[in-house]
Each structure stands twice: as C-alpha cells, then as structure tokens.
C-alpha cells in the first residue's frame, strides 16, 4: 500500500510537470466585447499604495453599482511576480518599462478603445509613448520623477543637490539614508552619479554602480516607508517618488524643512499606466474604471490628491494651479534633459537584480 502511494505521488508530479510543458496559451477573460460604462462584476484593483483617493474609488463604486477592493504592491517586479503566478486582478498600474515586459509576455490585453472614449483626453505625448506604441495596451495614469528628499535641519539649507549626498563619503553621513528597494531605481541612481545611462547594458558599468551602492552607508532599502522615516527622523536623506513626498509632507507641521529635488546628475522620469491583465475576471468593469479615471475632472482630482503630474490634457483646467507651477512636480523643459525613462533591457535585465542583491548585502 505504501509503495502504491509513492507511485501515485510520482505520477502526480510527472503529470503536473507535463501539463506545464504542454503549456496552454489562451486569450483569457479579455474575449468579451465591452461597451462604454458596462460592468461585469466588482473591481479588483492592484495599485501602488497612496496613489488613489479612497473617495474617488467610492465615487466610482457608487456611480456604477460595484464594489472596489484595492490591493497594494511596492514595486513593478513584485507586481509582475503576482501576475505571472496567475493572480487575477482587473486593473494593474505598471510603469513604462514594465508595460513592455508584460506585453512581451502576453500578460496584458489590448484595450478596447471603444469602451474608453476618454482616451482622447490624454496629452498626445502620453497617448503614443515609446514603451507602448499607439498606446494599445496601456492608458497613462500619472507621471513624475524619482529623486531625493532631504531634511534641511540635518543637511543644511545649502546642500549639494547631487546623488553625492548618498554616494560621496564626504557629503553623506549626516543622518540616515534610505534608498528604494528597487534594482532599476537604486542602481540607476548610482549609474547616473557615475555619469552613465541608467539603462546601461554594460556589466562593467553595472559593477561600478554596485560597488558604489555597497560602499555607501545606507541605513535601509525601503520602497514603502521612505517618507515616514524621513519625517520621524530615522533618516535625513530619502530616495523616493515625487508624488509620494508631496502627498505625505503636505500634512506635516514644519513641512518646509524638507525639500525634494532631482539631483543634478540626472534621474528617472516615470509614467505609470493602467492596464488590464489577460486573466482579469471583470474586464468590462476594468475598462469602465479606466474611462472613469481618464475623465477630465476625475483626472484632476487624482492629481490634486496624490501630487503626481497628470498626463491628462483635459484635466489641466481643474488641477490646483500651485501644483501645476511646482517645478518639482512638473519639471521644466531643461530639467527634462537630465531625466531618463527606464527602458527594459531584455535579457540583460536580470543583472540589475543580481548586482543589486549583491550590493545590498
């Protein structure tokens, strides 16, 4: 009897493996054609934290008679991992380069433009981006920069607006430093400091960057708490996304002791997008949600709440003018020269993760 059970176990493993190799490839839940404002069930949103006003979600829920549940992730890679595992969300918010990866892997569906008339609201630059030609698989959500926020009580008001605050032993070390737990962003910061492109595909350059990160006296690598740690005094220099800083710092007493900037050597400009996974169970609700967000007033509400820049041209008239004029949120033309989009490096990509792992230790 015991040997029979063992046989069953072995057969079971073989069968499961065979099924994996057999690999099936189905178009998934995106088959149904969706109409404008059509819903087919509740919305499962997978998003970065503190990126959307809960009131906006409630408004959507009430307007369309569905419930919305939101789950959070803190990096593109971990979101990708969950989707690859087969978790069925309806709307995800991948960044630019991640859209390319997910399209290549067949993980997101082409958007049905007829169900999203508000796509016309998008600024032309965002409607046809390099990472998703024709904007077929993604709808721009928010954009911004990644940079450093500092506590001027610690680094002084005359600080060098440079990555040297992290990597230069002479400038650093006046308080804790927090860097994003994100291979592309943190290795990218080091690469920029060294004068290389943050999309480098050179192992030598990557090694130099890794050495810099390893040598730097970094207190912690965190993609979630970098603003809280700054405000609580755990760190004095914090690496993070533009919108999040303004969102949190706005609430704090004595907020003007903190400053956010993109270092002079350059940094990342990113665009986050809404996409629909192939195995989404409620694709029509998903399309309706995207359309809802792209509405001019809702788009403005989004920015007025999370302080990231909006790609929505029609929303501009409803956005708080203070936000529109803030250069840290809407970088000027000449700042743009120093900024780079993160681009997927294909087969080279795993090296960023591996070198970062090694450097972090």
């Amino acid at each position: 009897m015991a040997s029979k059970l063992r046989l069953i176990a072995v057969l079971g493993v073989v069968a499961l493996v065979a099924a994996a190799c057999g690999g099936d490839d189905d178009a998934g839940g995106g088959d149904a054609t969706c109409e404008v404002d059509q819903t087919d069930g509740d919305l499962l949103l997978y998003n970065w934290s503190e990126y959307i006003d809960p009131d906006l979600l409630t408004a959507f829920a009430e307007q369309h008679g569905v419930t919305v549940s939101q789950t959070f992730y803190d990096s593109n890679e971990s979101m990708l991992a969950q989707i690859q595992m087969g978790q069925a969300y309806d709307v995800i918010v991948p960044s630019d380069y991640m859209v390319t990866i997910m399209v290549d892997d067949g993980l997101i569906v082409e958007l049905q433009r007829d169900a999203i008339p508000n796509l016309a609201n998008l600024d032309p630059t965002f409607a046809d981006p390099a990472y998703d030609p024709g904007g077929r698989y993604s709808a721009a959500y928010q954009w911004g920069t990644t940079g450093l926020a500092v506590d001027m009580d610690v680094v002084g008001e005359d600080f060098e607006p440079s990555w040297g605050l992290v990597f230069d032993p002479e400038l650093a070390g006046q308080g804790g430093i927090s860097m994003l737990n994100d291979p592309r962003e943190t290795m990218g910061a080091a690469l920029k400091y060294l004068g290389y492109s943050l999309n480098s595909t050179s192992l030598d350059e990557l090694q130099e960057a890794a050495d810099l990160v390893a040598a730097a006296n970094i207190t912690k690598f965190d993609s979630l708490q970098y603003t809280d740690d700054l405000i609580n005094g755990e760190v004095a220099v914090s690496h993070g996304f533009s919108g999040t800083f303004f969102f949190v710092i706005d609430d704090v007493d004595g907020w003007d002791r903190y400053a956010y900037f993109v270092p002079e050597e350059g940094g990342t400009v990113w665009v986050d997008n809404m996409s629909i996974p192939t195995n989404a169970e409620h694709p029509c609700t998903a399309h309706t949600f995207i359309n809802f967000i792209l509405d001019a007033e809702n788009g403005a509400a989004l920015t007025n709440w999370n302080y990231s820049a909006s790609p929505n041209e029609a929303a501009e008239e409803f956005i708080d003018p203070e936000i529109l004029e803030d250069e840290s949120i809407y970088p000027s033309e000449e700042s743009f020269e120093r900024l780079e989009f993160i681009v997927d490096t294909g087969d080279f990509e795993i090296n960023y993760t591996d070198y970062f792992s090694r450097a972090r230790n």
Partner: protein
Amino acid sequence: MVQTADPVERASLERGARKAESRRGFLIGLPAWIYLTIFFAIPLGIVFVYSLGTRTSTGATRLEDLNFDSYARLAEPLVRQIAWRSLTLAVITTALCLLIGYPFAYFVATRSRAMRNVLLVLIMIPFWSNFLVRTYAWRVLLGSDGLVSQITQLLGLGETRLLFTPSAVLIGLVYGFLPFMILPLYASIERMDWSLVEAGRDLYASGWTAFRKITWPLSRPGVVAGSILVFIPAIGAYVTPAILGGSTSTLLGQYVVDQFLAARNWPFGSALSFAIMSVMLLATVIYFRVGGRNL
C-alpha cells in the same frame, strides 16, 4: 472471540485478526497519508522539479531541458554569505534562548504546584499571542523615538536607534522564540526523577558538579526539543527580519522570498528552498541521534 481447540486453526485465526488489525490501523491513518501525500509530498516534488528549470528573461520558468545550474549557484559567495549569516544568527538566538530559558524553566519546575500553575499560565499567554503582534511591539520600542531610545536619552546616553540593525533582529527572534524553548525545557525538567538529583547533591560536594553530572543530562531531551523548536524557525525567519531588519543584510528567509516575489527566479528560489530543507532535515536527524528522541 471464537474459541477453538485446534492450535493450528487458532494460530491462523489470530494471524487473520492481526492482519485485520493492521489494515484497520492503516485505514484509520489513511486520510492523513493521502492528504499529506497530495498536499505535501507532491508539492515537495514540484519544488525539486522547478529547481531544475531555467529562468527566462522575463522571469517565467522553462521546464524543458532540466539542469542543475540553480544548484551550482548555491556555491556563489553571496549565497554562502547569506547562509552563514542566517546560521550564526540562528545559533546565537538558540544559545541565548537556552541561557535565559533554562534557569527560568528550572525555577518554575521547582516551585510549589500552585505557584507552578500560575507561572505557567503567565508564560502561556505570550506564547499563544500572535507572533506578528509581539514582533511589531519591538518595532515601536526600538525606533529613534521609541521607548528604549527615550530611556537612554534620559540617562544621558543620547539617542539609540537599534531598529534596522542585526541586533534588533536578534532581540526580536529571542523574544519571539523564548517560549518555544521554555515549554519543552519545563516539561522535561518537571518530569525528572528528583530523587536522583537529591542523591547527586549528597554525593557531590559542589552544586555545580551535581548539576553537570545529573540534572543537565536528565533534562537533555527538553534541551534538544527546545533547541530544535527555536533553531529551525530561526534559520528560515522571514517576518522578524522583515519588520525589524532594514534589508541591508539579507537573511535566508528574505532571500528565498525575494526570488519569488521580486527577482522572479523560481528555479533558483526552489533550489534554495530544497537545499535549506535538506539541511534542516539532516540537522534534525543528527540532533535526535545525539540527544535521544523524545519529542
């Protein structure tokens, strides 16, 4: 029972009865064996198969052309560094738990019956409390503004930030696992034959010698059980380092999770998991042989 005079017939009847007993025993346990085969043995097999796979450039897993490349990676310096770090942390945690827990268990075991019950209940309460909650409590205590820091500031020692350091993780682990050491120790010490201990005290001049030669060996089963119950979770610890550590010095648990949730290198992650598990198994078997089986 059917009575029969014929010894041959009776022997065969008894054999039949034994066989029926045997089969009944097996059948009673069958739900467990089936469940564990499906939901434990097979998953284990799948992990092994995945560990032989290859990672595609986007992080999916290819299962054609099985190979041992992922296992070859286990020899990399980074892996060895992380493994060594986890091992030393687990050993120190176990040692500290033993150092603190043994006198404590001895003390409780040597109180009066009524006192013992009270003391035990007081230990049970943290034991049954949620592990995550207890670890989180240290988060609040160890920050720059936390209670520990406030106390050192009062004492004029300045601000301490223990949070996000290896010490914080150690404190968290000892705190979390101390009850796991105390309870088996207590059970073992309480069950000891105290007449031997008394005899030892009369025999040996020094209390320490009596302890070393009598008490300690008698309580060894408890020491073994407690050590295993602390050492094993400590090596693969994930929650405590995630809450109290700063991810500047990765431990095994975090490293494995990273392979699945961030690096998306399932073959490597599977190889790591399988290797960790094999080592654990080996260590447990050895420990049992050395310490005497008495879980």
